[in-house]
């Protein structure tokens, strides 16, 4: 490593060196010095000076001599005196230099003699020149020289003379000042004070500031510090820079600085109550620069220290420590601060104090100018100071349980540990630091410190290990508390605390697995993973926790956090799987398991929601996902929800096949676990929209079956039964009706309708007994009118089945109860009464027909037959009275038959043997006449029957026999239905595999009002042979068409008609065709179909009329699909015949 560093340094050293300006050494004005030579030169210079002064003295004297009586003579004397004084000074220094030591009295003789000469000259001036305007100056100089010579009284005398006789002189204040100094030195403070105060009367004098200063000291000596400091203040503020006194004593004295410094001396006394901060502000105000401020603060601090004002001293030293950088001074300040703090035991500023100590020591450490032994000694001493402060601080915080105290202690420990790395108690201090941080609630730092300590401790199972457990746990706890209050943390601190908690937590669990704190730690480690978004790890940790501590109080939170982690990952399948595990875990509290169940259910919805969204965006993909999900979870609620979603989304997407599949599975698998109402509602809704009636009927029935109590189930069953009837599925219809009866209220209006429908269906199925039972069993629920109808039906059925007595019984009931007016109330009553009556009469007519004469006339037989004829006629008349065309026509025909029979009976009667031939002839004529009356009557009825049949355009195979017989005397007993037996296909849901059907149904499902699709579907079903479905579809389409004159309506009626043909209901077919032609007279299908029907049932004219109105065969061919097969046959047969005729012509 060092070699690399060396390389780098070598590399860097190759870079050009930045040099300072190229100063030449020659510019430095250094000259070599030789002490002896220097002294020699100095003596020579003084000697030269002395020579020059002597010359000046001589010249001055000469000048004086030449200037006798001149006005300026005193000036020359004054100059001479000054030259003597100058010479005295030179002589003094010459003597001193030559001697190489301090001057002795002998050496001063020449100097003093010269001074005395000067004094004499001054005195001469004073004596001889009283008018000399500079006498005050002479006196002042004279006093000065007296003082130099130690003649103090003379000096005083001269100063007093100046004061007394030269009041306006500028030397007066200075004289007062010097007199003051004299008294001051004599300790005559009163006199001194009085003289200094006189100076103050001359504010323009430079002596004033000195006087103030001196005066202040007088007050100090009198212990009047307040007055003293005021004077010092004045002295500091009144000094005018550049204005100096002409007094040797004060020439080199900076009186302003002296005043300021001496203010520090008396500040503590003058301002006893002031705080140290006030003191600092005070001196900052008076100081004119930072160095001056520093000087005065040093004095002040020292003064406080002497006065044992520890707190004040400490504050000032702290301020000084901020201002100073000199290491020695810093060490001194630090030591003094320690002394103050130790005395006061005030550790409020311990942090600052420790930092001052360390600042000093750090400067010392890196100073090249301080000897190492001194450094080492200081280091030891100051380490103890610092430790002492911190220990006191820590103890005080402990005693007071003060968070603020712990904070201060922690700061102090930090400073200590950062610097005193070689401290003998370093490890203890580190631990203390951690503890103070924790107690100060600085948890992040505490965590870091504990973690650092724990990392250094061995893992072995030792006594120390126990403390490692504590320390490591403290680290965990510290990080935990850090994260408890995240709002105050920045991102980095959060990341750090999370990492710390995880690392220390895992380490704790690994090192101390048997600790009772392990569950807590594990939980929190897991929580931290959760907190920082490491959900996989959080899930693993929390899951492990729950497995190990399923009954712990944290288990609930752990479970919830696992579920939440899954949720945040949007891994709902994982959530569900985990939730299921928890639900099945009996060790976990039931309340929690219930909560989990709810969450799991919600998650399942989410899963489904997500897949549903996918499905809506990408149907094939999403559909597959939902199907897979349903299959994979076929035994859970998720599977059910998946199918539900599949159902709903397939409806949305118009995917009928999937919808049906999903719906079926859902109903099959989950009919018990959840309400199938919604599913069925969807299926029913879709079936209706898609117009799939076979499917619809199944779901309606299923609905009624699965939800018997649902309010809709009655209606649904009723509709189902109806549809079943439409499909000719009478047994199913009756099953539905039966169920319906069981659910209806006893007084429901529907009962009658249902009972009759059921009986009708039973009859259609050939189950007459069943029909009878239905009617009789439910008779009590019927109204009186309905009872008549029921009796009529029952009577008729009994009759049909040969149970005549019972038939009679019910017939009688019916007859008894019936009143003609009832037909207005219920149109169905008369046809039933008519049928009952007709069949009863018809049955009797058989007997009638059987009554025949044998070989002889038997009057009884004839009478019996005649009577029966009468009865039958009456019976048929009664039938006709019911005005039901269906039965009136056969009744009419029956009347024809019986009269015709009677005529035949009469005619065929054997001649009485006892009659003569004439009598016989006469007899025959009479009989014939008689018979002719019956024939005529019969013919009248036959004609009426024929005419009515054509008028009514009868297309009923049963009736057709009658009127055709009547018309043609045909012997045919039965007429088959027009279409003959036609097998109707049943296109059920499986047919959705047919693409055309599926597409059309799907289209309809999306847009149920799409008439074109409905029409196309109608046609398609017809094509597929499901006529009944086709018919229902056509009916539905007709319902949707608003414009009833739309040609499409005509086509639909035609289709319905065709369906009727195939169902054998030719009458209804006829009506539909007619309706079609009413709407669209040019509807080819309806025309041909109706024409065929007419043709078949013998309404030839009407058929011909229709045929003749048809367009060309080619046009007809185009409408082929709308033409029933049989009708086509009729049509094409006629076309051929016409062609033949045309050829023949």
């Amino acid at each position, binding site marked *: 490593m060092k070699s690399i560093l060396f390389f780098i340094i070598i590399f860097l050293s190759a870079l050009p060196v930045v040099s300072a300006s190229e100063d030449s050494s020659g510019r430095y004005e250094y000259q070599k*010095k030789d002490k002896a030579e220097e002294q020699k030169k100095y003596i020579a210079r003084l000697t030269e000076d002395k020579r020059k002064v002597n010359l000046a003295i001589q010249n001055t004297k000469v000048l004086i001599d030449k200037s006798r009586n001149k006005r300026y003579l005193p000036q020359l004397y004054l100059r001479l005196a000054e030259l003597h004084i100058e010479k005295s000074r030179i002589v003094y220094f010459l003597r001193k230099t030559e001697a190489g030591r301090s001057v002795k009295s002998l050496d001063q003789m020449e100097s003093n003699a010269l001074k005395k000469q000067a004094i004499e000259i001054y005195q001469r001036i004073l004596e001889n020149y009283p008018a000399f305007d500079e006498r005050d100056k002479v006196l002042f100089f004279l006093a000065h020289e007296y003082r130099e010579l130690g003649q103090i009284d003379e000096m005083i005398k001269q100063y007093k003379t100046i004061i007394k006789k030269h009041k306006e002189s500028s030397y007066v204040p200075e004289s007062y000042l010097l007199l003051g100094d004299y008294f001051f030195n004599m300790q005559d403070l009163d006199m001194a004070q009085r003289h200094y105060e006189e100076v103050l009367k001359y504010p323009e004098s430079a002596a004033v500031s000195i006087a103030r200063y001196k005066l202040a000291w007088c007050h100090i000596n009198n212990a009047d510090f307040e007055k003293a400091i005021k004077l010092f203040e004045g002295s500091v503020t009144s000094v005018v820079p550049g204005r100096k006194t002409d007094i040797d004593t004060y020439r080199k004295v900076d009186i302003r600085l002296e005043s300021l410094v001496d203010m520090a001396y008396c500040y503590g006394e003058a301002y006893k109550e002031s705080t140290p901060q006030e003191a600092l502000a005070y001196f900052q105000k008076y100081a004119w620069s930072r160095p001056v401020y520093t000087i005065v603060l040093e004095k002040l601090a020292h003064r406080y220290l002497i006065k044992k004002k520890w707190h004040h001293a400490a504050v000032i030293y702290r301020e000084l420590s901020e201002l100073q950088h000199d290491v020695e001074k810093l060490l001194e300040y630090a030591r003094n601060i320690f002394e103050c703090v130790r005395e006061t035991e005030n550790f409020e500023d311990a942090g600052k104090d420790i930092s001052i100590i360390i600042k000093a020591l750090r400067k010392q450490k890196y100073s*090249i100018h301080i000897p190492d032994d001194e450094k080492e000694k200081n280091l030891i001493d100051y380490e103890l100071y610092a430790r002492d402060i911190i220990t006191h601080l820590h103890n005080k915080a402990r005693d007071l349980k003060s968070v603020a105290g712990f904070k201060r202690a922690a700061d102090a420990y930090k400073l200590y540990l950062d610097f005193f790395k070689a401290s003998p108690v370093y490890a203890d201090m580190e631990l203390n630091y951690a503890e103070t941080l924790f107690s100060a609630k600085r948890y992040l730092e505490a965590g870091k410190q504990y973690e650092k300590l724990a990392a250094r401790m061995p893992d072995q199972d030792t006594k120390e290990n126990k403390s490692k457990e504590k320390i490591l746990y403290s680290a965990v706890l510290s990080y935990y508390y850090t994260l408890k209050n995240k709002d105050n943390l*920045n991102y980095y601190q959060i990341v750090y605390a999370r990492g710390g908690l995880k690392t220390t937590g895992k380490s704790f669990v690994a090192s101390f697995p048997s600790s009772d704190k392990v569950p807590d730690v594990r939980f929190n480690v897991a929580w931290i993973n959760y907190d920082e978004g490491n959900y996989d790890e959080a899930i693993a940790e929390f899951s492990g926790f729950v497995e190990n501590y399923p009954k712990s109080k944290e288990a609930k939170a752990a479970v919830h956090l696992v579920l939440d982690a899954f949720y945040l990952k949007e891994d709902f399948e994982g959530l569900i799987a985990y939730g299921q595990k928890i639900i099945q875990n009996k060790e976990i509290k039931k309340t929690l398991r219930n909560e989990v169940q709810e969450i799991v259910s919600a998650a399942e919805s989410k899963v489904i929601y997500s897949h549903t969204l996918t499905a809506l965006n990408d149907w094939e993909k999403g559909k597959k996902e939902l199907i897979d999900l349903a299959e994979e979870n076929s035994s859970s609620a998720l599977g059910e929800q998946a199918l539900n979603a599949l159902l709903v989304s397939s409806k949305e997407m118009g995917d009928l096949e999937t919808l049906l599949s999903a719906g079926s599975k859902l109903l099959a698998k989950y009919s018990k676990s959840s309400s199938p109402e919604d599913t069925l509602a969807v299926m029913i809704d879709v079936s209706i929209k898609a117009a799939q009636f076979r499917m619809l009927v199944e779901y309606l029935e299923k609905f009624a079956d699965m939800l018997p109590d649902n309010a809709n189930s009655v209606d649904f069953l009723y509709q189902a039964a109806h549809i079943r009837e439409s499909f000719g599925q009478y047994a199913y219809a009756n099953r539905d009706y039966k169920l319906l009866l069981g659910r209806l209220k006893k007084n429901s209006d529907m009962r009658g309708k249902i009972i009759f429908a059921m009986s009708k269906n039973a009859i259609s199925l050939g189950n007459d007994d069943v029909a009878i039972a239905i009617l009789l069993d439910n008779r009590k629920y019927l109204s009186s009118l309905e009872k008549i109808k029921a009796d009529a039906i029952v009577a008729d059925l009994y009759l049909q089945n040969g149970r005549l007595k019972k038939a009679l019984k019910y017939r009688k009931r019916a007859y008894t109860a019936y009143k003609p007016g009832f037909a207005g109330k219920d149109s169905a009553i008369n046809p039933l009464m008519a049928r009952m009556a007709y069949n009863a009469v018809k049955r009797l007519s058989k007997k009638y027909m059987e009554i025949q004469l044998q070989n002889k006339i038997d009057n009884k037989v004839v009478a019996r037959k005649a009577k029966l004829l009468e009865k039958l006629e009456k019976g048929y008349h009664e039938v006709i009275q019911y005005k039901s065309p269906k039965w009136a026509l056969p009744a009419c025909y029956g009347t024809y038959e019986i009269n015709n029979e009677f005529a035949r009976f009469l005619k065929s009667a054997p001649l009485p043997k006892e009659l003569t031939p004439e009598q016989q002839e006469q007899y025959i004529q009479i009989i014939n006449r008689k018979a002719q009356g019956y024939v005529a009557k019969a013919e009248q009825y036959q004609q009426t029957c024929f005419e009515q049949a054509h008028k009514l355009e009868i297309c009923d195979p049963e009736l057709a026999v009658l009127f055709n017989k009547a018309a043609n005397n045909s012997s045919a007993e039965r007429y088959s239905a027009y279409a003959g037996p036609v097998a109707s296909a049943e296109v059920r849901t499986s047919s959705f595999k047919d693409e055309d059907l599926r597409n059309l149904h799907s289209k309809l499902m999306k847009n149920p009002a799409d008439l074109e699709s409905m029409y196309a579907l109608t046609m398609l079903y017809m094509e597929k042979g499901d006529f009944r479905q086709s018919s229902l579809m056509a009916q539905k389409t007709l319902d949707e068409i608003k414009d009833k004159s739309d040609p499409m309506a005509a086509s639909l009626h035609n289709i319905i008609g065709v369906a009727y043909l195939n169902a054998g209901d030719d009458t209804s077919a006829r009506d539909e065709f007619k309706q079609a032609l009413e709407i669209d007279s040019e509807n080819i299908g309806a025309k041909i179909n109706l024409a065929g029907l007419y043709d078949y049932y013998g309404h030839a004219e009407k058929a011909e009329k229709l045929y003749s109105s048809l367009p060309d065969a080619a046009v007809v061919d185009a409408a082929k699909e709308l033409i029933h097969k049989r009708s086509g046959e009729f049509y094409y047969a006629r076309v051929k015949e016409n062609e033949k005729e045309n050829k023949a012509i």
Partner: protein
Amino acid sequence: MKNNLCYIFLFFVLICFTGYGEANTDTDKEDMQDNVQVNAEKNVEKKLTESEIQEYFSKGYELFEKENYIDAAPKFYKYMSLTSPDETNYEWASFFLGISFKKSGLSHAAVEILSHLVIRKPNPKIVSYSLELLELVTRTLPFDHDLIINQAVCDRQYGFVGEKLENFLNYYQGEYDWEHGFFEWGNNHFAGIVPGTYYYYKYLFKKALYQVYRDRIDDAISILKKILENPDIDYGLRDNAHAMLARLLYEKGEFNNAYLQYEQIKKPILEQAEYILERAWAEYRQGHTEKAMGLLYAFSAPSFENYFTPEYFILKSIIYKDVCHYKRAMNVVNEFKDHYRDALDVIYRRGAALENPAILMLVLGKNKINETWRFIELLGKEKTRISLFQDKELVEYLDKIYAMQMQESVEAIRFLIEKEYEKYADMLLTFEEEADLIAYEIGLDMYERTSQYHYTEKNSLGKNSEKLQKQVVYNFQGEYWNDELAQYSVSLPEKCSSTEEWDIFFK
């Protein structure tokens, strides 16, 4: 390359000097004791006469005059070690030794000697000469701020030392006073600086900073403008004034004026990483997204590797997002994560600052740390020159000076780095959070934009898009010429009115 080397050097310096004092204390102590002992023994062995001692000074001075500083220095050092400070020539010897060190490329040793000398207030000539050299060092080299400014300049009061030095002393003393709340005394010092001089403009700059501190922005701006009125001021100061003025104008919302100030900064483009980013912001705030992006492209140059901050990525992605280049915006977010993946890993696993070069390089850009770092580099460089001296004692003395200073500076920089590391790590995590937020917002914008698009007339969109495409001035070519770095224009057509591939997803 230079940055990598810088990091390696920093890494080794910090590692090697960590605990240097502690680890070597005993050894040093022993060495020192040995030296003391050896010197004592030598003195005992051979007592030199006064003239022999003086001869060292004379010889040293003779060599000094011949500008043979390498040989002169040991003589002065020897003379000083044999005499006491009250010796007549001691101060001169000390002074000449300092000058010899400076002339030999050992500026720090010179500062160490001369600072200590002026503190003792020798004769005025020496004080003046020493202060002149110290002043020169402060202007031209990294230096020990505590030694020169705090101790030599600010702790003392000097008499008349000539106008140039007066300016120097007044400036730093004034600055110190201001920084410590002594505004009146500071003002007195500043008032003593002769207008029009280097220190006068330096003072004006400081004054502008102070006005900013007092939230008197307009005053600060007028001061800075006054500084910039003088065409002859020091180029470094001029650049700083432009930069500060630009930032103040930016804060006032005068983005264009701010941009013009940034443009006038003359320092080499490679040293302008932060300004380029700020210029990009200024352009962006004016709605000049293409210009802003052009400036950001400058950062793509290899020369800027490690210089740019995470903010670069954020701004880039915001710009892309604003003009609906969502894919690119997302790419920038990913680029940010790729670039700082290692750095973030270190943060997440709570690694030390030294393990995180990406952040360390950013931290080194911080003024105070950068100054200290440059000083450490200087110490390393100068230390290699000690071997130029042949005198063992002098070499030991110099080694000690440099080792101690290196240790002190390394400790200081370690402290500063650790303090700043957390800030930068937090900043990076904050940016990571912002990047995630931007990614989220990009997703949101994409969705909203698509939704708007599908309800807007297609024709009008087409026209807008075409119009904006035509505004492109110059297509970036992917070249990196340093002098052009800040001049790139890039094509950044606004795509909010056109569809992109991702739209299909939303359809």
